[in-house]
Structure formats: structure tokens, C-alpha cells
């Protein structure tokens, strides 16, 4: 039933009066802003070696915690100042974009494969298969994600690969829930019956008839999951059991700056705003995609 009520929340996310309203408020401006921000962050991540003024790992203890340029004692030599080890903050922020984007996309791909696979099986075959998959989803929902992820990362060692894998293996629940409910709706439609009548194989029906028709919903879930993975990685790294130093993960930067936050709040404000902006942009993109791709909204 937990699965059912979650499906209900996700249906509310589907085009409804709320989504239409959101479109009116943010218009497609929201979508455009989202795309623009993501494109900018992606460009920054790809061009990091060109854009970063310094090596993000270069320490200089004589230049620790220099204030950013908007302070009276700041200078353009370090536009965002330096961290507690004298590393250029702007350069670390720029390289940090790579980590967030990488983790978000790869983890969401892994969880997408698992979740969509399970959801398709449950939605198409129904009956016992559905019972088993629903049970698996319920079990997954009952597991405290953060705690389990922290424990596994602690034991397996906090490398980038481990963090990505752990997130990918844990965050497939929404994919499964949405795929299951949308597949059930589509399976009852005439064109699926027609495909079955003309003798298409099960695999063909699933891949050629069902999957393309639930793709819109899945793309929206994918954006949500990328955002979720980025936030969770940041939280794990913040707690010290995610990406390990000296990698410039934004979550790790907040953790490292925490000690100094009462004297130099910008140390944690800057990476936090970067995270917030990226996740907000991904969510705006998701909302926009949903509005744009839903046929009933094309007017």
C-alpha cells in the first residue's frame, strides 16, 4: 500500500491542474532557465581545466581563508577566496561541478535500469510477478537509505565508484513505482492488444509499444533521480562517508568549511548555493519537460 500511495503522489506530479498552474507561473521560462543553468554548469564542468584559475589541489598555507572579492580585503587574485588549506575556492567549485554531474547522471542511469526493469515486469505481467516486485519495492522503501549507504561506503571504502554504485543500487524505487503504474495503464490500451493479436513477441511489445509510451514519465523521474543522487552524495560527503578528500565535492566543501562557518560564513554558503542552483535547475528542467511532453498540455 505504501507503494500505492507513493504512486498516488507521483500521479499528482503528472499534468494536473497543479502542473498547468506551475506552467502558467514559471511559464516555459522555468524550463528555459533550467536548461540554461544546466548548460552553463555542464560547460563549466567540461572546460574546468581551461576555466579554473588555479589547480584545485594546490595548497598554500600562507594564503589560508582569504575573503572573496566582495569583502574589503578581498582581491581578484582569488575571486571566491581560499579555503582552510589555502586552495583557490573558485577552482575547487569549478571542479566540484564535474563530481556532482558525474555522480548524478551515472547513479540515475544505474537506478533507472534496475527500476524500469522491475517496473516493466510488474506492470506488464501482473499477478505473481507484480506481487514479488511490489514486495521488493516495499522492502527497499523500508530500508533507511542514508544509514545503509553510510555503512556500506564506510566498509567498502569511500571512492567515487563506490559512492556512485551505492546510490545507483539504492535509488531505483521511484523509477520502479512510476514504471509499474504507467505500464499497467498502457498495457490495457488497444494498440497493445493489437500488437499481441498480430503476434508480436512479449519483448517486442514491451520495448516497441510500451516503453516509448511511458518514456515521458520516465524522463521526468530521471531528472528527479539525478537531483536526488546529487543531494544524497552531498549529504554522504558532508558526513565524511562519501567522496573523500582532497576531491572537491561540494558536499565535502561544506563539511570542511563547517568549522569556520561562524567566522567566515561564505565558506559554506558558496558551495551550498552551487548545489542548490544545480538541483533547482534540474527540477525546473523536469517540470518543464513534463509540461512540454504531456500531449494534453499542447495548446
Amino acid at each position: 500500500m505504501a507503494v500505492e500511495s507513493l504512486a498516488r503522489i507521483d500521479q499528482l506530479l503528472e499534468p494536473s491542474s497543479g502542473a498547468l498552474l506551475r506552467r502558467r507561473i514559471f511559464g516555459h521560462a522555468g524550463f528555459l532557465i533550467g536548461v540554461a543553468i544546466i548548460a552553463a554548469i555542464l560547460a563549466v564542468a567540461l572546460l574546468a581545466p581551461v576555466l579554473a584559475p588555479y589547480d584545485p589541489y594546490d595548497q598554500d598555507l600562507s594564503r589560508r581563508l582569504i575573503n572573496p572579492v566582495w569583502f574589503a580585503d578581498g582581491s581578484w587574485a582569488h575571486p571566491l577566496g581560499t579555503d582552510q588549506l589555502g586552495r583557490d575556492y573558485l577552482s575547487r567549485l569549478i571542479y566540484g561541478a564535474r563530481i556532482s554531474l558525474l555522480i548524478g547522471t551515472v547513479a540515475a542511469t544505474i537506478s533507472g535500469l534496475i527500476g524500469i526493469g522491475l517496473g516493466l515486469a510488474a506492470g506488464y505481467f501482473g499477478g505473481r510477478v507484480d506481487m514479488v516486485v511490489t514486495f521488493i519495492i516495499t522492502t527497499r522503501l523500508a530500508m533507511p537509505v542514508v544509514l545503509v549507504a553510510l555503512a556500506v561506503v564506510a566498509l567498502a571504502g569511500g571512492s567515487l565508484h563506490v559512492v556512485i554504485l551505492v546510490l545507483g543500487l539504492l535509488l531505483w524505487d521511484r523509477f520502479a513505482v512510476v514504471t509499474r503504474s504507467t505500464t499497467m495503464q498502457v498495457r490495457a490500451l488497444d494498440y497493445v492488444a493489437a500488437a499481441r493479436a498480430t503476434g508480436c513477441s512479449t519483448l517486442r511489445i514491451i520495448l516497441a509499444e510500451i516503453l516509448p509510451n511511458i518514456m515521458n514519465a520516465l524522463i521526468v523521474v530521471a531528472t528527479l533521480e539525478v537531483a536526488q543522487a546529487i543531494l544524497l552524495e552531498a549529504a554522504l560527503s558532508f558526513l565524511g562517508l562519501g567522496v573523500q578528500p582532497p576531491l572537491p565535492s561540494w558536499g565535502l566543501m561544506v563539511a570542511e568549511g563547517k568549522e569556520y562557518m561562524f567566522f567566515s560564513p561564505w565558506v559554506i554558503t558558496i558551495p551550498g548555493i552551487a548545489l542548490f542552483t544545480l538541483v533547482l535547475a534540474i527540477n525546473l528542467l523536469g517540470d518543464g519537460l513534463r509540461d512540454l511532453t504531456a500531449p494534453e498540455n499542447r495548446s
Partner: protein
Amino acid sequence: MLAFTLKRTLVALLVAVTVSVISFSLLRLSGDLAQSLAGPSATAADVIAVRKAYGLDQPIAVQYIDWARKAVRGDFGDSFFFKEPVWSMIATRLPVTMTLGVCALIFALVIAIPLGVLAALRPNSWVDRLALTLSVFGQALPSFWFALMLMILFGLKLRWLPISGTGTWQHYVMPAIALGYYGMPAFMRLTRAGMMEVLASDYIRTARAKGLRTPTVLFKHALRNAIIPVVAVAAVQFGFFLGGSIVIESVFALHGVGYLGLESISRADFPVVQAIVLILASIYVVLTLLADLLNAFLDPRIRVA
């Protein structure tokens, strides 16, 4: 209703057992527990000694059955680190996490329900827009960062609230806001959608036509029905709050179960971690079971499915 209750209870039990099996295997298979326990400076002989002393040389199935047999009786073994019973360590911390969860839930509901109702009454108004903006922004805020920002604002600049620790009710205010914020968008959307649906229904028109006063119609007739799905989701959300409290408790050094979990992970104290995972999962399972039964009780159509 009885058959439905029995079936759901059985599934819930099965879920709890499966979670315990999975988390037990994960903790044993994702690294060498004996190595973590013995510490980085241990010799190979030390590691073997540790492995023997804690029974880690046994096959994993034997270890699990051993653990589960005791766990059923409420005996989660002793902490590797403190040599005291795991259960008593958790029992002293559980009330803190529960209080935090309840406060977070209350905060989320107190903000979300009125906003949802107002948004439904005046679609497209500034309240509706405010509600929408709050939920779009809220979903993008990293929880730990939001918590730190609250700390800087209320703890340092305004000096209204204590920054960390456990003790007075004031210690719970910021953590509850930081945790509860995440449940808000879902509650708000559900209330808004539920209210709009109910307000368009025939019995509300009848109530209005009878000449009942607007507040009576809104609160006695509409909200009561619109809020049913919110109650069910609130139970599930409470379970998520308990699981998510680990981040917030760590930020505020609030000595709850989540913080204990994090500390135990860094001390390689896995009997404690294992027990916490099982307890949090069990609470979630019980809550969703109650939500299911409540739903079925309120809406007989569900019982058939």
C-alpha cells in the same frame, strides 16, 4: 477486514525479516569487518584473533541465524565498542529521534495544510504561487546546508536558539524545521489536490445550498474528507523522517538514534548499526501497516483489492 488485516500483517513481517537479511549481508559482504574492528595498525594475527573472538569466521548464514534468534527476543548483542547491550544504548536515544520526528511532522503539517487549503480555495492567487514556490525551492535545498544556514541565522546572528546539543525544547526547534521542511511539499500538494476535488463535489454544493456557513462547509465537510490521503502519507513520511534524521541529528549534535548510527559506523560498531537499521525499518513497516489499515477502514473499496 480481518483477512485483509492478517494478510497485510504477514507481508509487513516478511518485509522486516527481508530488510534484516539484506542489511546483515550488506554489512558482512561490503568489507572486512574484522579488519575494520582491529584497526589500521593491526597485524594479520590480530585480525584473525578478532575474527574468531566475534564469530566472524563462521559462515554468514550461521551468523545471521545466531543473530536473528537473539534479536527476536530483543537481544541485539553487545556493542563492539562499549561492551554494553545494544538495546539499552538505542533505548536511551530513541525518544530523542521520536521527538524530533513528531516535531518535524507537526511543523510540516501546520505549514502545509493551511497553505494547501488556501491554495485550493484561491487557485492562481498569491498564496497559491507562494505555496508552489516554497515547494519548488524546498526540493532543491540540501538538508544539511539548510540546517547550517538556520544555525547561522537563529543561533549566531539572532541568538534565539541553541546551536547544538540535547536538553531543552529549544534544542528541537531548528532540527524539526530542517527535517520537516522536506515533507511539506508532498503534504501541500495532497491537501490542495484533495481540497479542489472535494470542493467540486455534489455534497459540498448541497451543503452550500442548505445555507450552511462557509467555515462549517469548509472544515466540517470538505477538509475532513480531503485530509484522508494526507493522514496515510503522513504515517509513511514519519518513517522517512526517522531514517533521514541521521543527517540533521549529526549537524545539530542531537543525541538521537541517527547520530548514534553515524558514530557507530565510524567506530565499526556493527551490532549497533545492524540493530538501528532493523528498528528504523520495523517502525516504518508498522507505520505503513497502520496507514494501510486506516485507509481500508475509511475506504471499504481498498479491502477488496
